[in-house]
């Protein structure tokens, strides 16, 4: 009995010392996870998740401070990818229609040139200067809607991108069989 105790104590002590030494000696910093999460996020910088942009949200998810299903533009698809990356359970975001891509458009008749929207835009997609009318560079606009609330005259509207043969998509074939996945 005593031998057993001594042997086991010896083993555990030796291993404990080795582990303790290694933990101090081989310590590594840095968290590449946030970068991987950021790569999955859609980068609309819309802040609808409650964090001031995609990168901060990614960091919050990486540290475990945020749920993975808060990203609205990323939708269920994005949440699924995050779940896969993090090995967490996927939680659906609830019913939502797949939205067409929208861009902001400023009604140039109404705009008073207050520059409030310019300051709100997370991707600098609105150009103009004080007292001059502003305009949205639609190729850069992410449709995040952050410019809507600050506008004092409600001159900004989100419009759907027009369908052209270039961005028109073929439908999923409709057949008698059930859609999988």
């Amino acid at each position, binding site marked *: 009995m005593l031998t057993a105790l001594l042997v086991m104590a010896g083993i555990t002590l030796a291993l404990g010392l080795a582990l303790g030494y290694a933990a101090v000696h081989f310590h590594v910093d840095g968290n590449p996870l946030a970068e991987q999460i950021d790569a999955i996020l859609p980068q609309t910088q819309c802040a609808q998740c409650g964090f001031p942009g995609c990168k901060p949200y990614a960091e919050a998810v990486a540290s475990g401070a945020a749920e993975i299903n808060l990203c609205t533009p990323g939708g269920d698809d994005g949440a699924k990818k995050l779940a896969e990356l993090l090995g967490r359970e996927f939680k659906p975001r609830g019913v939502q229609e797949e939205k067409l891509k929208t861009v902001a458009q400023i009604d140039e008749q109404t705009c008073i040139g207050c520059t409030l929207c310019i300051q709100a835009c997370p991707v600098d997609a609105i150009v103009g200067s004080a007292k001059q009318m502003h305009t949205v560079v639609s190729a850069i606009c992410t449709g995040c809607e952050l410019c809507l609330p600050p506008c004092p005259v409600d001159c900004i509207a989100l419009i759907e991108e027009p369908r052209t043969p270039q961005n028109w998509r*073929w439908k999923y074939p409709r057949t008698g069989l059930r859609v999988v996945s």
Partner: protein
Amino acid sequence: MSSPHIRRENNSVQRVMAHVLVALVPGIAAYVWQVGAGILVNLAIATLVALAAEAAILALRKRPIAITLTDGSAVVTAWLIALALPSIVPWWLTTIAVLVGIVGAKHLYGGIGQNPFNPAMAAYCTMIVAYPALMSQWPAVGNTDFATQLSLILGGTREIDGLTGATALDAMRTGLRKHEAVSAILANKTAFGAFGGRGWEWIVGGYAVGGLFLLWRRIITWHQPLAFIAGLGLTAALFWVIMPDRFPSPLFHLASGGAMLGAFFIVTDPVTSASTPLGKIIFALGVGIIAWLVRTFGVYPEGVAFGVLLMNIAVPLIDRKTQPSVFGEREEKRP
């Protein structure tokens, strides 16, 4: 609706399956002639159970019943199961086997085209593991009349020593385990004919004829049958040449058990076999080699089914690793 707006005429899954059924007829005819009409009863039971099970599942899953039921794939599976089992197994064994095949191996995976394992072989393996005794009682050729076979199928008592006979493979392996020489075994036993099992040679020949018909009609390609025969035959030949008294000849291997049924009807199943040309060859070669290994060293009497299931496991990997190069890729690879 988009292009193409025209299709090859007279081309359907039904047609493919019908060809397979027709190709099985010579083998079945020889079976009836040599062994007895009991097989027909088993075929009928298997067919009915298969159709009923398939219809029930489709109804449960609210899928179109008519189009899937009439594609003939369930009937093909049912016939292959009936032909793989001894023709005097009781009706309930056939029923369970078909249910395992149709429900377990096929429909739980989503139905035709989506199952990774060959339903017929999955059913056969399950049965041989679950009911080894019943699965090794084969009707002695020329010794059982239809009435006896029918009573056995319907669950009659199996005090039937005189009625069942060892198959050629069984007789061979029993002899070999007693360290008898191959030539001595062949000379002594009544189970053997000219080169395979007595009487069974005709059935095996019937399967081969059906297989050639499928090849001619381009329902199957040469890759799998040839590779399977090569895998089984060459491995057998190698050992037979070295020690002809301890290992039976390749001809014996090819002409006995489920070799021919396997070569033309099982390893050629498009769904569960590899699909690239090279993949098909690797797949069938593997089945042939494993079949020989199991027959020679294993504890189960027949290895084709296990070979098929084992290679089924590897199919996704084989397919992935044997992708043929696409148009223009060859030029790229050239320095």
